[in-house]
């Protein structure tokens, strides 16, 4: 097990390097310099600017410095647009916000989705099951960018219960709508997967044996059926995590929460390449690490996986 964990973590290093390489190549081959303005700068000024940001060096040297700075100093370089602030400072400002509502969304999606799916499977073909299936099908077509305006219309404009945007230091009123908007469709997917895998497990032979032995249903579900039924859910957690990270961009933009997504869109619109890359790489590394954690959890849960 230990060697598997070490191997799995090491195997994600090339993925990270490829991610950095791709973003760097994109930045290199982008037409136009980040400093090109409509009126055009005098060549001397441009040369000075390029020298300041190290853009006059050969590309491999730039790449090497870039990777070296990220690895050893966790430094993503200066922002091209915001003159007196580095990418690090911007990330440090936005990351805690994204992390707060992102974590809550993840927790909500898992803690609501799994029980919903499991209960629907146990009460198969009852009104409860149909209700759960209805909810999951409906939520499939309600991604975060559809949920966000709908929630704002209902809870901010009509009922006036919750603020329709802002962050205010993470007060709970400001967190609720982003969390619901971000988690709904993933909650539905988790419930759907949990339901179908639980149904499959409940029809398998070892559950029949357990029933034949006269075990109480409660014990059968909790001790025998739950663990194998959750395996497919665990595999889905990786993609769900990616989806939520990506979805945070919409949340930040729509609710003006001030997380990293907002900076990403701003950077995209103003062609601030170093900030774009910084956000992409940080999100990418988080994804890759999370996938590694999911794989390890899967190996731990499923005895059939050979380590």
């Amino acid at each position, binding site marked *: 097990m230990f060697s598997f964990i070490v191997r799995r973590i090491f195997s*994600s290093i*090339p*993925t990270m390097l*490829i*991610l950095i390489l*791709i*973003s760097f190549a*994109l*930045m290199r*081959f*982008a*037409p136009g310099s980040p400093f090109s303005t409509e009126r055009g700068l005098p060549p001397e000024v441009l040369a000075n600017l390029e020298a300041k940001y190290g853009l006059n060096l050969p590309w491999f040297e730039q790449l090497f410095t870039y990777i070296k700075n990220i690895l050893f100093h966790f430094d993503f370089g200066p922002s091209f647009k915001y003159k007196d602030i580095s990418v690090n400072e911007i990330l440090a400002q936005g990351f805690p916000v994204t992390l707060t509502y992102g974590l809550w969304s993840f927790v909500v999606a898992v803690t609501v989705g799994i029980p919903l799916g499991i209960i629907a499977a146990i009460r198969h073909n009852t009104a409860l099951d149909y209700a759960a299936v209805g909810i999951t*099908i409906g939520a*499939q*077509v*309600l*991604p975060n*960018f*559809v949920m*966000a*305006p*709908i929630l*704002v*219309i209902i809870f901010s*404009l009509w009922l006036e219960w919750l603020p*329709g945007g802002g962050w205010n230091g993470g007060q709970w009123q400001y967190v609720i709508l982003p969390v619901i908007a971000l988690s709904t469709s993933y909650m539905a997917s988790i419930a759907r997967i949990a339901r179908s895998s639980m149904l499959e497990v409940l029809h398998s032979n070892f559950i029949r044996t357990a029933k034949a032995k006269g075990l109480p249903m409660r014990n059968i579900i909790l001790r025998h059926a739950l663990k194998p039924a959750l395996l497919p859910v665990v595999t889905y957690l*990786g993609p769900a995590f*990616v989806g939520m*990270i*990506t979805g945070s*961009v*919409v949340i930040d*933009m*729509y609710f003006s929460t001030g997380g990293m997504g907002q900076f*990403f*869109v701003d950077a*995209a*619109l103003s*062609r601030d390449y170093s900030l*774009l*890359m910084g*956000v*992409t790489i940080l*999100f*990418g590394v988080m*994804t*890759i690490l999370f*996938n590694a954690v999911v794989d390890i959890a899967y190996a731990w849960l499923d005895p059939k996986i050979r380590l």
Partner: protein
Amino acid sequence: MLVNKKKMESMADSMSSHAPIEGRSLWQDAMGRFMHNKAALISLIVLVTMIATSFIGPYLSPWDFESIDWALLGNAAEMGAPSIENGHYFGTDDLGRDQFARVMVGTQISLMVGIVGTAVAVVVGVLYGAISGYFGGRLDNVMMRFVDILMSIPYMFILIILFVMFGRSIYLLFIGLGLFSWMDMARIVRGQTLAIKHKEYIEAAVAAGVSDFKIILKHIVPNLLGIVVVYTSLLIPGLILTESFISFLGLGIQEPLTSWGALINDGAKTIQYGTLWQLLFPLAFFVTGLFCFFFIGDGLRDAFDPKDR
């Protein structure tokens, strides 16, 4: 005797009127099962109606999708509500452009992006997966490892960077979306190819000296089509979602063209002025369209893989 003869004749008639029993292919079986699936069939009808409307609709409206109704400009909140008299069936958007025409164009573009992007993804994914599965061994290892790496990158960000750097043309949207969504297809196709490649007819083709690429194209790919069709029907709504996501951020489709995501974005920006029609019409089309695709996909899966039900 006479009676018997009549009986014999009628029997002979009835026998000769029956054509010899025809074998039913996998496809005919699947089509039959699909036609019996009410949800899928209704979805298909709704979807076809929607596509037809989106192409016929613009001819029924006096306005086109990009010209501004100057009479309403700046007053969209009060005067832009849906009405038959001034020809704005779905109202106007914030700039006074006809919402009906815009929703029609948005529907066309969203569906087109979904279908063309999926076509790119299917071609790349099927060929990649079939080659990887067929040749196996070290090549397979390397190719699948590459897919693993690509899959663990949050491609949405790379895609947005691409749009920012190379301009937001609709062709880049097609190709970009396609090139970032073939990986699942490649995995599924590879798994299926591994199962197919030891079948006798492949062995026969190898023995007959058919070249590897011809075997892949003529013998393996056609036998994969069932699973490819099913997965394709699930990929289209996925790509429509992705495109809408990017357009919602204002980074996708370029004005004055529009798509479902861009329309929802425009509508969502103005809800505090009470112009709900700007949000609800595109939203209704988006939700209905995706519903239809998901039900059709489910129907196809049940039709091609009945044991899974």
